């Protein structure tokens, strides 16, 4: 199972490189024994579910609804735009995409902790994000845009119009 190796590698990256925010990592399995997703236990009590496919489809779901001021944050490459099929990201490996996303969560979590979530910080994230990765769709309910512009920006998928809503 090639995808299991990918999930294992991602788990190790999360534990080794993001130890300041990742408390635990578990590959959640289906009844068949096949991996379903990677679940990361984040230091602030939130959970991040990562779904990755062999062909490059992905979905990150950051669950913070049960925290004060929390919400759901999603980043994926589902075919949001009905005029085109789902974008793949051959230029960016699964590992690189996940690192980028986890860096964004790390930055957001640490900034929240220090009490500084200024728009200038988020704007700089947005600039860096746009320079370093292609644009993908953002989905979810309004708290996504309201509460995680930094995450979305670093992941590189939020455009100026969406940014304005944040």
């Amino acid at each position: 199972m090639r995808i299991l190796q990918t999930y294992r590698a991602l788990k190790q990256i999360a534990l080794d490189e993001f130890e300041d925010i990742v408390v635990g990592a578990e590959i959640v399995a289906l009844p068949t024994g096949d991996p379903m997703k990677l679940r990361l236990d984040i230091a602030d009590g939130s959970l991040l579910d990562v779904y990755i496919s062999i062909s490059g489809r992905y979905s990150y779901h950051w669950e913070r609804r049960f925290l004060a001021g929390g919400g759901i944050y999603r980043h994926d490459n589902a075919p949001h735009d009905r005029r085109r099929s789902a974008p793949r990201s051959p230029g960016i490996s699964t590992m690189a995409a996940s690192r980028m996303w986890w860096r964004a969560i790390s930055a957001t979590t640490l900034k929240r902790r220090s009490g500084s979530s200024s728009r200038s910080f988020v704007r700089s994230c947005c600039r860096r994000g746009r320079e370093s990765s292609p644009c993908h769709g953002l989905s979810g309910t309004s708290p996504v845009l309201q509460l995680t512009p930094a995450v979305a920006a670093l992941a590189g998928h939020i455009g100026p119009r969406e940014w304005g809503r944040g």
Partner: protein
Amino acid sequence: MKVSYATEIAASFGLSEEDLYRQALESFLRDKKRQVLQMKLEILARYGAKSVSDLEARIARGLVAEHPAWEDLIVAENLSKHLEEIDAYLADLQGAEADSAG
């Protein structure tokens, strides 16, 4: 499992140990294939989709809610890939069986 135990089972069915091993592996893989196939069909059936690409088309056309359909699609795609791997192992085993018979 002790080697002598496998020898005893093979002898009781009139098989060589190699044949017993091959048949055991084949049964294991077929059982796994059945489980994986059922899981994939169960996921697709939730959305009335016939295939992974059909599910993707349904998401794109807004016929099904994007979440959790997209996550389920990712899981179904990985299951499809695993089915291909299982089929390749089964083909190899059957090829080996044909070689030994020939």
